């Protein structure tokens, strides 16, 4: 294996590839990564498969090439490393069975410590993460404030202001908080057992992990509980649950542990928890499965919709789950081709940064279809809304529970009576 020393004492005729002098541990690690990638023949399959590589990101192939060429400066200088959403598609498709995703993750870890030409967005995200690492969960306000303080202002100011207003309203003493039917916590239920939305006793209780973003939008949080209740599902939400550890915002260590399966409302949570060894699954899957089992239908907000599942999910499974919901609701799901519905929404490093080719294509398709966009991810919803605003397209975008809910059942009537 070539060591850093080999690299430094290479043939004297070679042009220096990096002007910066890096410490030996960086060169050793780079040499090790290059060795791991040495059988790469630049077929580009990884970039072809990368959901965020449409335009803003030039893809894993180029990063591997820079790594092999010893262009450490170029590797660390660009934002490319930080555009990765860690979905792992590159590793899945690699013809040479290189673990590309892990190579990129290790490069990011190196850059975090040794990179000099920092990606400003990453620096902002890191500052936010540093504050958040001490807390159990990411606070969106703190995160956004830290990023703004570092000179990073979200591209969609209107959207950001809206979100800020919502958060402020939720927090103001005596504000909208009271009206936003705060879901019962474990403690509440302990005080009043059996007072759930479904008194007929056929309901189930599922352990629920709300994540960091949902609790900060009180109305949406309440809506999730309400919709679940419509399915006869009580969400047992651990209010003190820690961070899922998803690295999309920087290096936040996971602070959540669970024994059995937990249900989530966020693909990043799913991904983060799964990587931490927690069995996590989307809440929507449980709701749809329950509707199928109990034989009741779903009610939808429109007669057709265009799905958007985000970059972090198992694309085909997520699309199939949405198709299942569409089937139960008797509405049409309009799909152009699968990768259109999971390309990057424009949230790079965790915050909206402008419409991407992917979101542009998706929105055009939805506009042509005359159908709203439905997504199982609340963050994606906000990003797609921002993109629509930027493109001046009227395409409503809904979070899953905003679009689907359980239909009224005859049984419900009787139980009320």
């Amino acid at each position, binding site marked *: 294996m070539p060591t850093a020393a080999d690299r430094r004492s290479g043939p004297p005729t070679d042009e220096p590839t990096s002007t910066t002098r890096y410490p030996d541990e960086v060169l050793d690690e780079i040499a090790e990564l290059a060795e791991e990638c040495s059988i790469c*023949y*630049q*077929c*580009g*399959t*990884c*970039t*072809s*498969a990368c959901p965020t*590589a*449409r*335009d803003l990101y*030039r*893809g894993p*192939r*180029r990063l591997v090439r820079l790594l092999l060429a010893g262009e450490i400066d170029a590797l660390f200088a660009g934002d490319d490393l930080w555009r990765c959403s860690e979905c792992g*598609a590159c590793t*899945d*498709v690699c*013809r*040479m*069975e290189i673990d590309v995703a892990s190579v990129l993750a290790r490069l990011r870890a190196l850059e975090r410590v040794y990179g000099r030409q920092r990606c400003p967005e990453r620096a902002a995200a890191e500052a936010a993460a540093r504050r958040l690492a001490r807390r159990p969960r990411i606070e969106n306000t703190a995160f956004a404030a830290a990023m703004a303080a570092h000179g990073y202002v979200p591209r969609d100011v209107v959207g950001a202001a809206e979100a800020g207003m919502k958060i402020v309203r939720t927090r103001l003493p005596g504000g909208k908080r009271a009206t936003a039917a705060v879901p019962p916590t474990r403690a509440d239920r302990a005080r009043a057992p059996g007072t759930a939305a479904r008194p007929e006793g056929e309901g189930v209780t599922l352990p629920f992990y709300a994540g960091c973003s949902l609790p900060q939008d009180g109305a949406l949080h309440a809506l999730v509980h309400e919709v679940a209740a419509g399915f006869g599902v009580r969400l047992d939400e651990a209010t003190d649950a820690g961070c899922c550890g998803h690295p999309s915002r920087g290096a936040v260590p996971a602070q959540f542990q669970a024994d059995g399966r937990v249900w989530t409302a966020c693909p990043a949570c799913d991904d983060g928890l799964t990587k931490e060894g927690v069995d996590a699954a989307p809440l929507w899957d449980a709701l749809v499965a329950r509707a199928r089992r109990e034989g009741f239908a779903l009610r939808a907000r429109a007669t057709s919709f265009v799905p958007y599942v985000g970059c972090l999910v198992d694309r085909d499974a997520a699309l199939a789950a949405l198709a299942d919901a569409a089937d139960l609701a008797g509405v049409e799901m*309009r*799909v*152009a*081709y*699968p*990768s259109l519905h999971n390309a990057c929404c424009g949230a790079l490093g965790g915050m909206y940064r402008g419409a991407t*080719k992917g979101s542009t294509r998706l929105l055009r398709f939805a506009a042509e279809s005359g159908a709203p966009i439905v997504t199982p991810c609340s963050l994606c919803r906000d990003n797609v809304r921002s993109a629509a605003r930027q493109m001046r397209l009227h395409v409503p975008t809904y979070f899953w529970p905003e679009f689907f809910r359980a239909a009224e059942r005859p049984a419900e009537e009787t139980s009320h009576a």
Partner: protein
Amino acid sequence: MNDVRSGTAAAGAGAMAAATAAGPRPRVLLCECAGTMANIDFDRLAAAIATEAEVVRGAHWCGREGRAQLLEIMERGDERRLIFAGCSADFAARRFQKLTARGLRMEVADIREGCSWVHGDDVDAVTRKALSLVEAAVRFPATTADVLSHGRRENSVLIIGGGVAGTQAAAELAQMGHRVELVERRPFLGGRAARIGTVFPTNDCGQCLPTTDDQPGVRKCFHRNEAIDHPDLHIWRRTTVESVNGRPGDFEVTLRRLPNMVTDACVNCGLCETVCPEPAAEPGTKAIFHEYYDGRVVRTIDLDACSFCGACAQACPVDAIDFTQSPERATVHAGAIVTATGCVPAPHDYVSYLGYGHDGVVTQVELAEMLPAWEEQAALGHMPAREVVMVQCAGSRDRRYLPYCSRICCMIALKHAMRLKKLFPRMKVTVCYLELRTAGIGYENWFLAARRAGVEFLRGTPPEVQFDGDGRPVIEVEDVTAARKSVLRPDLVVLSTGLVPPSETAEMAHVLGIELDEDGFIEILDRKNRATETAEGIFVCGSAAGPKALIEVSTEASAVASEVHNFLRSAGRRGAPASVVDAASCVGCDVCSTLCPFNAITLVERPADAPRPAEVKDDGKLAVIDAGVCRACGICAANCPELAITHHQDDAAILGRLAALTAGVDKPIVGFYCKECAGAAISLGGQHRDAYPETVRLIELPCLGRVSALHIIEAVRLGAAGVFLAGCAEDRCHYRSGDASAAEQKRIAEELLAEAGLEVPIEQWHLCAVDRLSVARRIRMFHARATHDEATLEALERELQTIGGHGLPGGAVLAGAVSASGGGACAACEGGESGAHGR
């Protein structure tokens, strides 16, 4: 006169040693090589040799007068051993070729390339070394190579596979006068080539075969090609090989033939097919079917699909359908076997990740089948697809599927792309490729023509083919050269799938006892020099050893025919006599039989009357060496724990020579080298006159595998300051495992010497002929290291620095005769112990 020959050929190593002890004094022909060996005092040398042998001096034995004198000596016929002390054995063999043909048999003591030419002006030291070389030769006779006849070889050959490769080889072998059994699993000859449409690079069909009649360059369709009708060519259709017994030269092969059911009376009217009620597995075909008319069989019955209803037999106007036929077994004898089983397109599950199975995704094979219909559409002015995307390396060069390149898919794609552009100039044809491999005569022109025709080439390959709401394919692919992603929305995706060995290959290899390579194709014996031999007497040609274009298949078919012809006609092997197991010492362990690279050694039940060592019980095993298979490399003799195997260059001779060569030398360096690659390097280096110290004493072995720990330890015991083992280039041992055996023996010797507290440098080198210019310096450096001669070492290192790593000869006697490029090739070896050649 010719008694010399018969005497040598008959004598085993033991018998020879006895003959020496008792026979007359040997005769040494001392050659001064026309005065080019000025550093040897020949008077002193001759006087010293005269104590042990009769010396005949000559200034120039290979000159006209010398040769005449030699002839005279030969004609005396006094049965003395002749030892030629002069140039190397290789050089002498060329110089005395004509006399050798007339019966001259002589041993060689190399005092020229191995002594005078490679040493300095110290006349005393060089003369002493020359003397030791001649003495070693006189005292320990070497066996001269001779023709050893092997067992009878059947004048017949079994060819498995009736595709282009097998059929062409069969026709040529029959023409050469051998009986040929051509076995084909399917009912029809012609293989894949006859069934596909046009082939590159000629754009005509693949149904023709060269004829063997007098006109050169004539080719004819299979069904018109009379070469296949040769009376000695037996065609076995629907036949498989069940078992193979016997040995190379005389295989006994059991064949199983399924009946054709349709006899030669068939006139190809096709009535049977119209009445047949049973569909076959392939869509559009029935249980009675025709495939490709190779001139003999027209139709046949798929026995899996047939319900034996008899409708076809009733309909047949010429009573050509005979349901009374039944499967049969037959045994044939063959001197050689040729495997020509070809390859098949990769199974579809290799490309299901690219949407295969969905509408709008086909393979190149299927596109070829669609093209005739598209041609008709083109004539009507229709364009069946607006945009076509071809995906190269579909499931190939991919560790998850086929890791290798199938070599012909690029050309097939170019062929089809150009055909499409020609039929439909407005069609958008995009080829997604990883690398376009167009290495073949005239192939690059096709690439050029395709670019000119407007075919788009996109470097990149999609991980999947998706489908939109209308079911149309969507390909999202990185255009690698532009570093951006493209979304292609073709009407048709064409997958260039790879080729794999037929599923029966592994089974057949097992029956034949041959090896498969890492990709499942038939392993060839040598990837540089022997493309058509897979084992002794078993040959391979065509795509059975890896996918190939038709021109290569055809070339290999002719090559294999010549090789089989040589194999069947060969009278024997020229070489040294086989090694012999001494039953009185053999304990029946399996070391030799495991190590023998040629499977020449078998363990048999020890015959009751065979002698046995004291510790062996009655039911012990005994190793037996098949003299017809043994190549006399000596690996078994070197590794036998009981020293029970006698090689023609036995331990007594090697140890004796070692003693003779090192006697009276201060701190000698002993080098064992094989006479193949290392021998070439050392002998050519000697002719180059690159100097090394006189204290270096070399012992030539047939293969480095002959060296045993015993020899190394004995060299050290005799005072050697260092020992080197020089063999062939890495993994290129001419006896396959000699270098591995030597490495093991070196390890054993090092361990034992370390136990005895003897720290002597022992190195193993891998040399080949290109090292001729650096081998002397390598020896000098080793000598300096072993004798701790710091001054020389420093000088050598300085020398290496000034020549910048280019292996120009060090201490060259002949300046100006140096090829810089030849020297450069050896630079890789200078630093380390092992050379990097031949890979």
